[in-house]
C-alpha cells in the first residue's frame, strides 16, 4: 500500500527531516511509528500525504507515484488525522466539517449524508452533528477529527499522536475504535502501550532515519534500544526484563 525507497523529506528552509529511509506497508499491516520528539514521525506522515515539499526518492501510495499531479488521488486514499483536532475542525459545525472532504471530491449530497450517518453511528456521535467544535470535549473532538477522515473512506489511515489530549477512558474508547477500523493504519505515537496493543509492527525513528523495524512484541521489549532513542519500555511491560534485539 505504501512503498518508500530512499525517501528524503526536506523542509522549505533546507532542513532535512527524513533522511534516506526505505520501508513498505502492506494492506492490513497496522504499524506504529515511534521515536523521540523531533525524530521525524509527524514529518513522515505529512510527507506521505504530499503536504510538504516534493520528496526525494521514490514514494508510491497504492501504486500511485507521489508527484504533484497525483496528489488529489493520493489524498483520497490516505486519511491523515492531525495531532491537534482543533487544526482539523475548522468549519462552523461538525456536520459542515464532515461534508467538507466529500464535497471537495464532488460526491453527491445523498451519498455524503449516507456516509456521515454511517460514520457517526459507528463512532457513537449521532448527537454532535450540529455542535461547534468549541463546545466539544477533548475526546469528542478527537472522535470528530477521525470522523472527518473516515467519511472520505480512505484505504489507509495516518494518525498523528491519536491518544494525546485524551483522558484514560477516552483513550480506551479510541483504542477500541481503532482496532475495529478496517483501514490499514500507520500511527505515529509516544504512547507505546497503544502501539503494543494496536500494531503488530513497529518502526523506530531516530533523527530522521529508521533505527529499527520489526515486530512490536519484540521491539518494544528491547529496553536498551528504546533508551538509545530517548524512549522507555511501555508501562505495561515496565518491571519485566526485555530481550535485547538489535536490527
Amino acid at each position, binding site marked *: 500500500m505504501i512503498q518508500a525507497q530512499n525517501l528524503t523529506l526536506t523542509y522549505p528552509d533546507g532542513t532535512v527531516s527524513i533522511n534516506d529511509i526505505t520501508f513498505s506497508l502492506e494492506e492490513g499491516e497496522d504499524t506504529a511509528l515511534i521515536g523521540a520528539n523531533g525524530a521525524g514521525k509527524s514529518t513522515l506522515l505529512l510527507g506521505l500525504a504530499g503536504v510538504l515539499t516534493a520528496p526525494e526518492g521514490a514514494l508510491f501510495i497504492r501504486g500511485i507515484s507521489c508527484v504533484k499531479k497525483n496528489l488529489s488521488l493520493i489524498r483520497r486514499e490516505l486519511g491523515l488525522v492531525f495531532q491537534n483536532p482543533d487544526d482539523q475542525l*475548522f468549519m462552523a459545525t461538525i456536520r459542515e466539517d464532515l461534508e467538507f472532504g466529500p464535497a471537495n471530491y464532488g460526491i453527491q449530497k445523498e451519498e455524503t449524508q449516507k456516509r456521515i450517518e454511517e460514520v457517526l453511528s459507528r463512532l457513537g456521535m449521532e448527537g454532535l452533528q450540529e455542535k*461547534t467544535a468549541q463546545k466539544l470535549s477533548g475526546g469528542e473532538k478527537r472522535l470528530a477529527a477521525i470522523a472527518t477522515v473516515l467519511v472520505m473512506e480512505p484505504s489507509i489511515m495516518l494518525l498523528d499522536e491519536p491518544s494525546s489530549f485524551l483522558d484514560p477512558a477516552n483513550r480506551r474508547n479510541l483504542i477500541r475504535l481503532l482496532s475495529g477500523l478496517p483501514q490499514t493504519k500507520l500511527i505515529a505515537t509516544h504512547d507505546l502501550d497503544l502501539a503494543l496493543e494496536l500494531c503488530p509492527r513497529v518502526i523506530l525513528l531516530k533523527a530522521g532515519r529508521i533505527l529499527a523495524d520489526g515486530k512490536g512484541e519484540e521491539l518494544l521489549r528491547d529496553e536498551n534500544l528504546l533508551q538509545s532513542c530517548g524512549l522507555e519500555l511501555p508501562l505495561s511491560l515496565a518491571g519485566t526484563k526485555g530481550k535485547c534485539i538489535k536490527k
Partner: protein
Amino acid sequence: MSSIQKVGREIYLMERLAQGTSALHCLHPRAKIVVTFCYLVAVVSFPRTEVLGLVSFFLYPAILIPVSETPWKPLFRRLLPALPFVALGGISNLLFDRTTLFFLWGVPVTSGMQACLSIIEKAGLSVMAVLLLAATTPLGELSREAKGMKFPGVLVDLVVLTCRYLGLLWEEGVTMYTAYLLRAPGEKGIRMRDAGPFLGNLLLRSISRAERVYRAMVCRGFAGEFGYCNSTPLKPGDLLFISAVPGVFTFFRLVNFPLLLGGIFV
C-alpha cells in the same frame, strides 16, 4: 469574563444565531439572498433626499427579527459601528447643500439635512437586512448559494476564509491573553511595553495555526476553492417568499405609504 473573551463571543454569535430553527431559518438560502438583494435595490433606489418613503422599509426588519427569534440587541450593536462612517458621508451634504426646504419649529430644514438623514436611513436599513441574512443563514450555505448564483468564487472564498481566520486569531489571542494575565496579577490589561511583542507573537502564532489548518484542508481535498454538496431544490414556501416579499418592496417603493397614511388622517 474578560473583554477579549467577550469579543470572541461576538465573533461566533452570528454563526450560533444562524443555526436557529425558526421559519425564516428554514427558508432556502437562495430565497433569502434574492429577497435581501431586492430589498437593497429598493432601498438604495430612492432619491437622495427621500426620507418618509423609506420609513415603510423599517417593517421588514421589524417583522423578521421576531419571526426569526433573533435578539435585536446584537444586531444593533453590529449596526452602530457603521453609522459614524455613514454620518461622515452625510455631513458633506449638510455643509454644501443648504437650500432651505421648510421650517420646523422655527429651525430651517435644508435639503442637505434631508439628504444626510436619507443616507443614514438607507445605510441602516441595508446593513440591518444583511445582518438579518447572516443571522438566519449559516455562512457555509450562503457561500454555497452565492457560488451557485455565479458570484465570483474567489471573492466568496476570500470572505469565508477571512471569517475563519478572524475566529482563529481570536482563539490564539484568548490563550495568550489568559497566560499573560495569570503571570501579571493586578494588571487589568496588556501593558503598553508588552503590546508590541504580544501582537507580534499573536500574528506569528495565528499564521502557524493557519498553516496547520490549511494542511488539514489540503489533506481533505481542498484545492484552492471550497467545494460544496449540491443544493436542495426550492420549495413552494421559498418560491412564495421570493415572489411575494419583493412585490411588497415594489409597492412600498412606488407608493409613499407614510405620506398616504398622513394624507388620510390629516
